[in-house]
């Protein structure tokens, strides 16, 4: 347990020591700011009350681009620079390393999500009697769980490869595919399509969390996806020893 904490702290420090963490924060805030500004204008034009959803919905999608940028080097870079050898010969279990890496990424994105709270806070000033707090809470819970699963996928992918750019593209491709894998089920509802529908990460987010519905089924889905990825990441790290 202590090792996980030590590793995640160092991982977070690593993100904050280099430019990538700040660039990711900048990109997220810039795009959310544009979306926010547009939606405020629309609300004034049509005199409708804006909901916090228009801030939360794009975060999920933007994570597809941002998560790989942060997680791509988590194992791949350590392998490349050789520091993995130092960690793997220290009294640290392989799973502790993977979970620590994952937790470091989760902490980083948690910070990023907290930053985006500025938009709902501003919005709250514009709307009387304030925005729907329930939507806000369930939306952010959904984004958090989604992000935790995404980061686990990113760490797993990084553990497979020795090159962080390759890890970026593979993670990005996997995340994007998981985001739109339900597309065939829009055409026809066959048994195969309903499996695709279940695997779709956005299907556990848009209809439920984003609409203010918190269901155990979706929470379990994200947590078990993350757990599976961390398990696979550990297995892949162990496999490296046997290469």
């Amino acid at each position, binding site marked *: 347990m*202590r*090792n996980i904490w*030590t*590793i995640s702290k*160092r991982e977070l*420090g*690593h993100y904050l*020591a*280099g430019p990538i963490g700040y660039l990711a924060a900048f990109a997220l805030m810039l795009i959310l700011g544009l979306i926010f500004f547009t939606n405020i204008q629309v609300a004034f034009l049509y005199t409708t009350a804006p909901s916090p959803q228009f801030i939360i919905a794009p975060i999920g999608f933007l994570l597809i681009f941002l998560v790989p940028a942060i997680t791509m080097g988590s194992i791949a870079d350590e392998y490349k*620079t*050789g*520091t*993995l*050898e*130092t*960690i*793997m*010969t*220290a*009294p*640290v*279990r392989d799973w502790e390393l993977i979970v620590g890496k994952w937790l470091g990424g989760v902490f980083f994105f948690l910070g990023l999500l907290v930053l985006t709270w500025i938009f709902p806070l501003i919005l709250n000033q514009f709307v009387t009697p304030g925005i729907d707090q329930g939507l806000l809470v369930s939306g952010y819970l959904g984004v958090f769980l989604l992000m935790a699963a995404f980061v686990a996928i990113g760490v797993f992918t990084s553990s497979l490869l020795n090159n962080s750019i390759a890890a970026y593209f593979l993670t990005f491709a996997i995340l994007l595919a998981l985001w739109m894998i339900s597309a065939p089920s829009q055409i026809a509802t066959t048994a195969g399509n309903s499996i695709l529908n279940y695997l779709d990460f956005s299907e556990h987010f848009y209809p439920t969390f984003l609409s203010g519905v918190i269901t155990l089924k979706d929470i379990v889905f994200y947590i078990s996806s993350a757990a599976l990825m961390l398990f696979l990441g550990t297995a892949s790290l162990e496999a490296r*020893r*046997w*290469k």
Partner: protein
Amino acid sequence: MIEVVGLTKDYGTRRALDGLNFTVKKGEIVGFLGPNGAGKTTTMRVLAGYLPPTSGTVTVDGKDLIKDSLSIRQITGYLPETVPLYSDMTIRGYLLYMGNLRHLKHVDELVDQAIERVQLTDRSDGYIGNLSKGMRQRVGFAQAILHDPDVLLLDEPTIGLDPAQIHEICNLIKEFGKHKTILFSTHILSEVQQLCDRVLIINKGRILVEDTPEQLQLRLSGGRNVIVRVNGKITPTLAAFKKIKGISTVTPLGENSAQLTVQPDFEARPEIARVVVKEGLDLIELRGADLSLEQIFIQLTAEDESSPNPNLTSAE
């Protein structure tokens, strides 16, 4: 302390280690020699718990390397060949990180001690990315000794250093080796002579020789060599040299010098000097010329290349 029995390691179809057997006793400094690609780094990595062996057993402090991996890693310090460090951390930050991963008590004090030992106190808050090769090496060494390990594995600790730094690292190893078990690999044979209680020479994944540096020299040169130089023609004197007790061969080296091989346990130099004077010559030089470890090393590995079954393995 370290017992290696039948250690074999395959990388895919390539056999890197082919049934290594050796032991390192507690408190011993053992030098690990071999040409590049002989399997030194692989052996180090196996002992450090990074790579599992394909077959064979390794016990450290009576514990099995695979089953008790974590507790063995706890008492082992390891400096990998490439000295991997995080360039975005400070020296102190890095050592604290490694110390915390080892759950060290009083980690701050231990880090300070380690930094002081490798003489980086004034740089301890500087970033590792800005350090020179020699300083990085010292940080790596500090990391390896941070937890006062019982077993220290150093993979080419002096590679890429200047002579002053090599001297420094050697002193660190010597000081540390007074109470600890150390296995270190190197190419620089003077280090071995200076530091090691015992030498392992490895080639193509097998142990070629295992002996003390002195014994190795004696055994392979068949005795000690002495070079005599006089201020005249040495040829007429050669027969007289041959008659001296304990001298086995006489080889002329040019007009006025010769190399004499003296059997072990004989001191022939006073008699050589007397013979020279008796022959009416002036003695200019009389010095020992033992086979250097370099020569032994080249000789051994060359022999191994030509013969499929090396029979030089020590009886130890």
